[in-house]
């Protein structure tokens, strides 16, 4: 009986091909939109996480002042000094590296070309902490750091913008009003999670930076990389204790610096992306509802059109239940068709978007299964009312209808 009903449904759908296709479209768009949104969103959130991981793993960022991200930030707080970094290095255990950094935008010049970029003064720990690897050359030596030698390590954007086909190693790059020798080239990291070019960097030994570019000895931030993720809270507390003492913060007084856990920020950002994905999916789900109403509409038309047929069926002994099943199966088949096409279309759109937006394509089989089930459910819910109307027709009235 069920097989008969499915066959009947297919026949009826085929007979009204154009109308069926238009009805399907509602479901196709709804399911397709949900699938595309969720799949793209999942890929985007994966990308965000990957990018944040590139910032350095298990990283704590120490900045002077309070709440440097929010409004009312207190930027005149005393900057860190080299001795603060040394104290952290001496007192923290379970860390891979402690890297001070000071930054400034400057014009870099090589030959006839120039390029504005961010120049960072730091130590060789910075490469460890930030997970920077070199494609060629070497990092600063301890001697170079101590004496403030004019050497630099440059990012791949600088290489392409200024050097072209010339091998940059050993060349002298002008930064502001001094020149330094290029001793290392960084591997490319690509765009950051915030959309900036991470490869547009020039790294100098901290003292070189202070003397030649900044004219002061300020350190704006200190990055600490913790070996084990589980140790992060402990290291964070220890770092706070060390700095409170060094900066003479009285007990009970608020810190005049902040130690941020980047992992936490990364998780927050990933969670935000997930919420956004859910939101987009929910908007798309509304169009699915509209598609369902389309099915109900067309099924009601179908019942009206086929009143006479229903009358014949009832007259020759079809039970209410059998007529109900017939129309319910028809709407379910219709909705499932739409659902399947929608899933394929949605995945196609997501795959195309993945290429265009450079995010990973990640089709979640659970979402696909869910879309399938939801399509069937739409068929049941929106097909029930028209089907019941068909089943309850009076056979005499129905047969009289032309």
């Amino acid at each position, binding site marked *: *009986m069920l097989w*008969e009903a499915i066959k009947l449904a297919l026949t009826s759908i085929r*007979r009204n091909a154009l109308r069926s296709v238009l009805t399907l479209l509602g479901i196709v768009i709804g399911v397709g939109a949900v699938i595309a949104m969720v799949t793209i969103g999942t890929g985007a959130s994966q990308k965000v996480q990957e990018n944040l991981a590139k910032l350095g793993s298990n990283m704590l960022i120490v900045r002077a002042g309070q709440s440097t991200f929010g409004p009312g930030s207190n930027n005149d707080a005393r900057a860190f000094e080299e001795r603060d970094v040394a104290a952290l290095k001496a007192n923290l255990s379970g860390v891979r590296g402690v890297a001070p950094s000071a930054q400034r935008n400057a014009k870099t010049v090589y030959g006839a070309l120039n390029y504005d970029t961010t120049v960072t003064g730091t130590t060789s720990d910075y490469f460890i902490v930030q997970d920077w690897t070199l494609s060629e050359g070497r990092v600063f030596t301890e001697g170079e750091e101590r004496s403030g030698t004019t050497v630099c390590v440059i990012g791949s954007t600088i290489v392409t913008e200024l050097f072209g086909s010339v091998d940059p190693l050993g060349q002298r790059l002008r930064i502001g009003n001094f020149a330094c020798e290029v001793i290392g080239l960084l591997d490319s990291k690509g765009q950051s999670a915030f959309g900036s070019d991470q490869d547009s960097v020039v790294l100098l030994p901290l003292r070189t930076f202070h003397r030649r570019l900044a004219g002061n000895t300020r350190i704006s931030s200190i990055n600490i990389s913790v070996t084990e993720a589980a140790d992060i809270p402990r290291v964070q507390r220890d770092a706070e204790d060390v700095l409170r003492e060094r900066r003479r913060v009285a007990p009970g007084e608020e810190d005049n610096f902040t130690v941020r856990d980047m992992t936490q920020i990364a998780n927050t950002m990933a969670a935000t992306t997930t919420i956004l994905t859910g939101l987009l999916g929910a908007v798309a789900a509304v169009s699915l509802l509209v598609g369902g109403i389309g099915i109900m509409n067309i099924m009601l038309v179908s019942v009206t059109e086929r009143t*006479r*047929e229903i*009358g*014949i*069926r*009832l*007259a*020759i*002994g*079809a*039970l*209410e*239940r*059998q007529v109900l099943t017939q129309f319910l199966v028809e709407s379910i088949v219709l909705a499932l068709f739409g659902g399947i096409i929608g899933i394929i279309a949605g995945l196609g759109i997501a795959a195309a978007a993945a290429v265009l937006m450079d995010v990973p394509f990640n089709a979640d089989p659970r979402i696909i299964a869910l879309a399938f089930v939801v399509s069937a459910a739409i068929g049941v819910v929106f097909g029930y009312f028209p089907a019941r109307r068909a089943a309850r027709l009076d*056979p*005499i009235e129905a*047969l009289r209808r032309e």
Partner: protein
Amino acid sequence: MSKAQPLVELKGIERHYGQGGGLVRALAGVDLGIKRGEFIAIMGPSGSGKSTAMNIIGCLDRPSSGSYLFSGVDATALSRDERALLRRNYLGFVFQGFNLLNRTTAIENVELPLIYRGNPKRERREKAVRALHLVGLQGREHHTPGELSGGQQQRVAIARAIVTDPLLLLADEPTGNLDTARSHEIMELLTRLNQENAITVVMVTHEPDMAAYAHRAIRFVDGYIASDETRAAA
């Protein structure tokens, strides 16, 4: 079920439509007994209640009052689905407008009642082929109604009505849409089914020529049976 027991027994059947001042008494007290093996023609002007009577006998409609025993069973007490089961198993319907499913082949139309009975495919095919043979449509099994003449369509409808081996065949103006020659062919077919296959036939018609095929003619006027004549066996 004894031979003496009537197949259909109507007593004091009334059927009203509307309410209060607009009340229409389509049937105003009908007593009628139909025995197995009879071939009955129901006649009368339009609005006389003959179609209403057919609907009640066919368990498509329920009387407002009165009693209806079908083969000894009180049909007025049956639920909607029980009446559907009764129609499915014991009754066959032939309509003036054929009422076949469009774009559906002859054999599929004939199989339809068997699908609702839940018969397996092979059995359905066999029975449908046999029924189509019986009405003289061998070789037309896979034609759709659109490809068949009116007379052939009505034969398909008759095959659909008899495929379940019903006790009673109800035909509402079966020749109403057919020309004279085709009409006589259909009447000969009904006569043959009545005599050779022992199917009780009740037929509504307004053509005396067609009514002449029946053994018994019942005339309705204004919701009453005005006359009930049994012709001497030919």
